């Protein structure tokens, strides 16, 4: 053994010597080529030892890295969360499986600030269908990327669903994927749930649905124009908005899903009324807003008459203190009748304000195929002021006693075609000043009405996942007892055992 070691040592010294000699030769200036130098560097002992270790380490590390990458790609995950937060529901699974278009879900989040839950859920979609892929786009690096599809400013952590087959896109702001509630004691909102799946799935539904409802707004008779809130909201519920001048049109376009008549100031011609009637009788739907000023438009009134609705002359004034807004007795706050349109407004407890409204009545003379249902009704103390220029707000002679309907839904099923018509007494219901107020239900009333007449099935019902904190029931005494046990008694027992063992060993 010893001999061997000394042998090794002598070998080493000899090696070193020869190396030195080589170095000396170079120093002397004989023309040693670079190739020789390189060769020499591979022969040094230091290199041989180090190279072996380095190569082995490198290979092992690379193998481990590759193994990790493979396992990551396999994406084997088990959702053990209580709510099944990271598992898609069957509603989504069934819907996504049938998607034929190529869809890209862009997750617009700053790198490093991605929301874990959102990421996890979005990544589940491509696993369901080969047509869906997920891409990450950093909105800071690519600020103009989303503008191709969505013109407004985008928020971090939002999602953009793009259907490349038909170039339709839907943007989901980050806030929409969080369900929050406001604590009215502190006026702070806190998160109660997440709705990533619900939003993404309904966006998928939007970008893949074949025919989206188109709303035609009638123009040419001084109809009130729609405000920006209404138009953007229509976009959100996937309704395309168009306008039509009935005077110059031959017929109502075939793709029209809902015809909006917003308080005409001048009368329609009989031909136009015939055209609209024809459209409606074929199963067309309409949303009609009337104006108290114009109850005398004969042809327009005949259209309403045809569907069993008539406008009461004058302006409705509310006598009941609980049914008008502030000091304005003409800013009516009607009651909701039980109807599909008003269900959620009723349950949310939000109010609708109908300013400067005319009363509506259903006609007994209506055809038997027609069914009418009230939507908004005034109180019993309401009356219609026939002299609209009167300066006296209280009830006068000649005023018509209420109650009145302020909104009526009409349906007629004839020859298997269902016509749906919703008539409101005030066009101010959808005035920008009313719909832009988030405390009022006016916008929702409008959107619900559109959804009702267009028979738009609710977006796929995917439940939101509750993230609300769950609590235990621990009494103060129990808490104290267990705290002392855990923090003091248990560690002391462990230390005591240790002390005992160590002491006993020493005594031995």
């Amino acid at each position, binding site marked *: 053994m010893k001999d061997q070691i000394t042998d090794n040592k002598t070998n080493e010294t000899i090696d070193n010597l020869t190396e030195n000699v080589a170095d000396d030769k170079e120093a002397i200036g004989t023309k040693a080529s670079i190739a020789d130098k*390189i060769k020499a*560097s*591979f022969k*040094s002992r*230091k*290199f041989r*030892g*180090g*190279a072996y*270790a*380095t190569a*082995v*380490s490198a290979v*092992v*590390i690379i193998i*481990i890295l590759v193994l*990790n990458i493979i*396992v990551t790609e*396999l*994406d*084997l*995950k*088990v*959702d*053990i*969360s*209580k709510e099944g*937060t*990271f598992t898609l529901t069957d509603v989504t699974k069934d819907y996504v499986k049938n998607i034929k278009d190529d869809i890209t879900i862009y997750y617009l989040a*700053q*790198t*490093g*600030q991605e929301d*874990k*839950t959102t990421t*996890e859920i979005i990544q589940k979609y491509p696993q369901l269908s080969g047509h869906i892929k997920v891409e990450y786009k*950093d909105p*800071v*690096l690519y600020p103009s990327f989303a503008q191709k599809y969505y013109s407004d400013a985008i928020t971090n952590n939002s999602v953009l669903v793009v259907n490349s087959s038909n170039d339709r896109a839907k943007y989901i702001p980050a806030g929409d994927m969080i369900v929050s509630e406001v604590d009215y004691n502190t006026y702070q909102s806190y998160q109660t749930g997440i709705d990533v799946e619900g939003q993404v799935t309904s966006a998928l539904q939007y970008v893949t649905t074949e025919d989206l409802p188109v709303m035609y707004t009638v123009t040419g008779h001084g109809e009130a124009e729609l405000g920006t809130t209404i138009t953007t909201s229509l976009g959100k519920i996937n309704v395309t908005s168009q306008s039509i001048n009935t005077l110059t049109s031959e017929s109502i376009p075939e793709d029209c899903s809902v015809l909006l008549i917003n308080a005409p100031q001048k009368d329609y011609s009989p031909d136009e009324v015939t055209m609209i009637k024809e459209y409606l009788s074929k199963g067309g739907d309409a949303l009609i807003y009337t104006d108290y000023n114009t109850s005398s438009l004969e042809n327009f009134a005949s259209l309403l008459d045809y569907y069993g609705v008539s406008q009461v002359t004058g302006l409705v004034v509310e006598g009941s203190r609980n049914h008008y807004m502030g000091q304005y007795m003409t800013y009516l706050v009607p009651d909701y009748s039980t109807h599909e349109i008003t269900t959620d407004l009723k349950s949310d407890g939000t109010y609708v304000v109908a300013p400067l409204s005319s009363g509506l009545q259903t006609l007994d003379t209506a055809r038997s195929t027609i069914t009418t249902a009230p939507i908004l009704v005034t109180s019993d103390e309401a009356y219609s002021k026939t002299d609209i220029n009167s300066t006296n707000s209280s009830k006068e002679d000649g005023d018509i006693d209420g109650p009145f309907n302020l909104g009526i839904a009409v349906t007629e099923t004839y020859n298997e075609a269902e016509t749906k018509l919703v008539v409101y007494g005030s066009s101010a219901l959808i005035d920008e000043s009313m719909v832009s107020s988030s405390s009022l239900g006016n916008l929702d009333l409008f959107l619900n009405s559109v959804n009702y007449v267009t028979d738009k099935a609710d977006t796929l019902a995917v439940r939101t996942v509750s993230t609300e*904190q*769950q*609590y*235990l*029931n*621990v009494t103060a005494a*129990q*808490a104290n007892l*267990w*705290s002392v046990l*855990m*923090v003091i008694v*248990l*560690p002391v027992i*462990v*230390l005591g*055992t*240790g*002390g005992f*063992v*160590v002491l006993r060993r020493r005594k031995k």
Partner: protein
Amino acid sequence: MLAIFKKELKSYFTSMTGYVFVAFFLVIVGIYYAVYNLMNMVANFEYVLSGISFIFVLLVPILTMRLMAEDKKQKTDQLLFTSPLSISKIISGKYFAVLSVFLIAMVIVCLYPLILLQFGSLSLKVAYGSILGFTLLGAAYISIGLFVSSLTESQLVAAVVSFVVILVTVLMDSLVSFLPTDNRTCYLVFFVAILLICWLLYSMMHNYVVALTIGVMGEAALAVTYFVKPALFDGLLTKVLGWFSVMARFDNFTTGILDLSSVVYYLSVVFIFLFLTVQVIKKHRWN
């Protein structure tokens, strides 16, 4: 291996070290448990574990500093390395001994969620998933500590270096999101990283030809990738560091995802650092 394992484990429990570790660990877990689950009555045991994940910064150095450094100082390592056992067996024996001390503490912690059951319902799946994640996290950190300990003779240096290394991994997560994400900066960082790797290779092999060849090839590949597809470099730095982040993997477990890749990742960390420790020891033996 078993002999070394037994000897090491015994040494932990015939001295106070093992008991102090377990007791200290239980005190910290106990405090968080009392505050979260008992005082505030929150029905999530995983909050306790994610709250105390910093515990390793303090505990792992204490546990691992003496592992290799002590032997080296007392020169008992010579005895071990001349023994017929292979170095990898010695190292794994030592590692599993320390790991067992930690596991004993974790077994006690396993009872904690059960205690809460008497006060109401809580998700045991997430609770035990987090305990699994926490155990893997600890195992990975202990292996890092063991490696650091093998680099130095002084216990104090070993402790301080492990402390700093683990602290950096804990803080990295929150710092990573502030790193620049544009592809130019990322490219530059990786450019520098390759230079560093070359320097490392050179210092290990003392051969500039290999180091330079690998360096030039690496830089060329990087540059070509960058010019062909710069989008690939968007936020790459954040992504790479995030992928390596020891803590981020643990978050998966506490949010309720049992991810095989995280488990494999932790086991890989354990393996790589044990392997590197063996390499370091072998190098010492040659010298």
